[in-house]
């Protein structure tokens, strides 16, 4: 706690910038890092301007924002449940968002309505999971996790049903959305602004979160107003998840893997971990998206496949290691 918080964050900022430059420069026409910076500063040819500023940069920023939001949402849920296995994807929130989005697609609607429907689905799923798990008592972590897993399985069945009855020409779009795909993202700015706001908000909340991580009774004895804080985290995490899922479909495991890795290296001070999650989650998704674009170029893979391929072994390893 007394150790400087700035150094690891500075390292992560640099890593994030490097990943973005790499991502923007990589593709069918590659742009060397030096020129990427030059183009962003307003130089370079017209083609490069279009390529970098209009095509690649928004996508890279969207990937960064999505990854950051998911990682912070995961970290917040882990504090709320005091369980390192909590994550928007595992708790079935992404499933709810997917059902919302697919319903809109199935109805032949597009664009903004799909996004809005996904957002509503994510919020509905959050309410369901936390409401059901809350029951009459308080949130016991194991009950919440079990509820989340069961509800996620339910969403899975609904998704399969919808895929089975949907007309063939709609299937590719739906599948891509399900696997998570940054190329659908619109403007990255709302999400980036939200991410920044949350990182600022956790500065004053951080120490209370650290105390809450010791259990609600202990936290209350040390002066934390537990209920209001739990609701704040819960609403924040839902909002972040819903925003991320709306931008890029359901991308799994970023919220699980990133906070866990960071905790291993940086310890458990939430004032450091949460901003670090925003940066590292963003960086990871930018790199994963770059990979998704080049592995079988000119075809693109959905980025959710890459994160799942990385996340599943990590998740299993964590489960295996945990008591």
């Amino acid at each position: 706690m007394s150790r400087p918080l700035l150094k690891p964050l500075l390292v992560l900022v640099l890593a994030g910038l490097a990943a973005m430059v790499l991502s923007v420069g990589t593709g069918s026409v590659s742009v060397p890092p030096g020129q990427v910076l030059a183009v962003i500063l307003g130089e370079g040819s017209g083609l490069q301007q279009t390529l970098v500023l209009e095509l690649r940069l928004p996508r890279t920023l969207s990937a960064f924002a999505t990854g950051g939001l998911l990682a912070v949402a995961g970290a917040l849920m882990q504090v709320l449940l005091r369980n390192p296995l909590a994550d928007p994807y595992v708790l079935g929130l992404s499933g709810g968002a997917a059902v919302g989005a697919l319903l809109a697609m199935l109805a032949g609607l597009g664009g903004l309505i799909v996004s809005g429907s996904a957002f509503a689905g994510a919020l509905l799923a959050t309410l369901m999971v936390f409401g059901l798990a809350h029951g009459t008592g308080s949130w016991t972590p194991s009950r919440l996790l079990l509820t989340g897993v069961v509800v996620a399985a339910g969403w899975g069945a609904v998704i399969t049903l919808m895929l089975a009855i949907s007309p063939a020409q709609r299937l590719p779009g739906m599948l891509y959305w399900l696997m998570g795909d940054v190329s659908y993202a619109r403007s990255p700015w709302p999400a980036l602004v939200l991410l920044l706001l949350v990182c600022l908000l956790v500065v004053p909340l951080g120490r209370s979160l650290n105390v809450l991580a010791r259990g609600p009774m202990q936290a209350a004895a040390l002066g934390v107003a537990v209920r209001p804080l739990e609701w704040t985290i819960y609403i924040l995490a839902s909002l972040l998840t819903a925003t991320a899922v709306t931008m890029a479909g359901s991308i799994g495991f970023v919220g699980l893997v990133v906070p866990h890795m960071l905790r291993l290296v940086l310890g458990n001070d939430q004032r450091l971990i949460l901003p670090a999650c925003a940066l590292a989650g963003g960086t990871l998704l930018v790199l994963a998206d770059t990979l998704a674009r080049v592995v079988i170029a000119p075809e693109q893979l959905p980025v959710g496949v890459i994160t799942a391929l990385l996340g599943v072994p990590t998740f299993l390893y964590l489960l295996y290691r945990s008591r």
Partner: protein
Amino acid sequence: MNPLRAKELVIDIPGRDDGQPLSFTVEPGQIWGVLGPNGAGKTTLLHTLAGLRPPRQGTVCLADYSLTELRRRQISQQLGLVFQERQDGFPATVLETALIGRHPWLSPWQMESGEDERIARQALETLDVGQLSDRLVSTLSGGERQRVAIATVLTQAPDTWLLDEPTNHLDLHHQVSVLELLTEQARSGRSVFMCLHDLNLAARWCNHLLLLYPNGDACWGPAERMLAPAALERLYDQELLTVEVDGAPLFVPKKAR
């Protein structure tokens, strides 16, 4: 300091009658011991006094304010609680654990300062766990964890200490040094209210006792009045032999034969 006061308090234990409502004041300098068999409600009483559980009836007050009127932060600046059971959650070092005792005293925007760390380190030294500062709490023995928990409340520096079985897991020497520490706290004008299983430790270190019976009955008062063998035998449903050692009564369970 503001004395902790129970007014017509009935703790909420599901399925039990109200029993005797509790009305007492824990004054500065007093050391209270709560005695009672398993399941009598000692922990529930402690949590109710700390405002962590609502009572069935009555109120708990600090000075003239009911705990329900105070903010958690204000309460935690005056009341500290050593829990019997602790959750681990995420891994944390001994120093980090003690340092959260400063939480009630720091504003949301403040980081822990060098002074806070000094207070925490000193508390750890006092509890004889200073050399473990950088260890993860989850790697410690039961007794060491117990002392870290007490050091956390010492860092918190409350006027009133509530402790749930503070001598649990401790060896004889550390039991005595914890009780001496609490005596020291009481002498400096604070007060102590703790559940104890060991009748003899309670007889030796507490100046007030509260006997809590499983049916909700209770009686309380100065220790020398409460240590009547007949009452204690009824409390534990156990025959006792009483001998006098060092000017204080010593209770030994009778063998069944």
